């Protein structure tokens, strides 16, 4: 398994501002993912964070709104840009060690936008 930490664990932000969420893994991993979990909902994949290249975004998510960095095999950041109240969610990073169907999740970042 992998131990994953996220910073911050929660934040309250004003609309129009941006927040960068960090995800740190205790070992090198090939696959890292970012998910959004809206209140009372399930998980929706935002993008796959690729080391050394641009992230791969899912339908409905764009780089300008959710820029992602992956400078090495243990770290990634997700920025939520120009926030609105609709961005209030839990943002989760996950990693897969060998196969994409075995994913380990971080504790999540609970974001509230006022």
């Amino acid at each position, binding site marked *: 398994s992998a131990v994953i930490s996220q910073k911050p664990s929660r934040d309250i932000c004003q609309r129009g501002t941006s927040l960068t969420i960090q995800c740190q893994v205790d070992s090198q991993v090939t696959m890292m993912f970012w998910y959004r979990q809206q209140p009372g909902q*399930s*998980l929706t*994949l935002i993008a796959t964070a690729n080391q050394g290249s641009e992230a791969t975004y899912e339908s409905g998510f764009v780089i300008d709104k959710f820029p992602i960095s992956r400078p090495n095999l243990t770290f990634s950041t997700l920025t939520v840009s120009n926030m609105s109240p609709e961005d209030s969610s839990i943002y989760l990073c996950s990693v897969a060690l060998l196969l994409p*169907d*075995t994913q380990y*999740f971080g504790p999540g970042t609970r974001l509230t936008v006022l």
Partner: protein
Amino acid sequence: TQLLEQSPQFLSIQEGENLTVYCNSSSVFSSLQWYRQEPGEGPVLLVTVVTGGEVKKLKRLTFQFGDARKDSSLHITAAQPGDTGLYLCAGLQKAAGNKLTFGGGTRVLVKP
């Protein structure tokens, strides 16, 4: 319409009762996972099933993958308050780029 439909959405039972959560789709998955998520935490992987008809047991939890690999169920025997949480199924489709698709989740409350 979600690719993976979970039912029921919410389940409230007394300690000691049994419960079953269903995860259904019209699509075939190469594997299917079940996760449990508690408030303030990320989902924790419970099991992965990969073979049609497969049954896996994890103490009081029994997981079944349908013969056609389109559906799955999670059965909990003699539920305990510690089983309370959000149960999520997730399927992997290699043809869809090896990404996990999550069901809508089933919120389980086990009352003492």
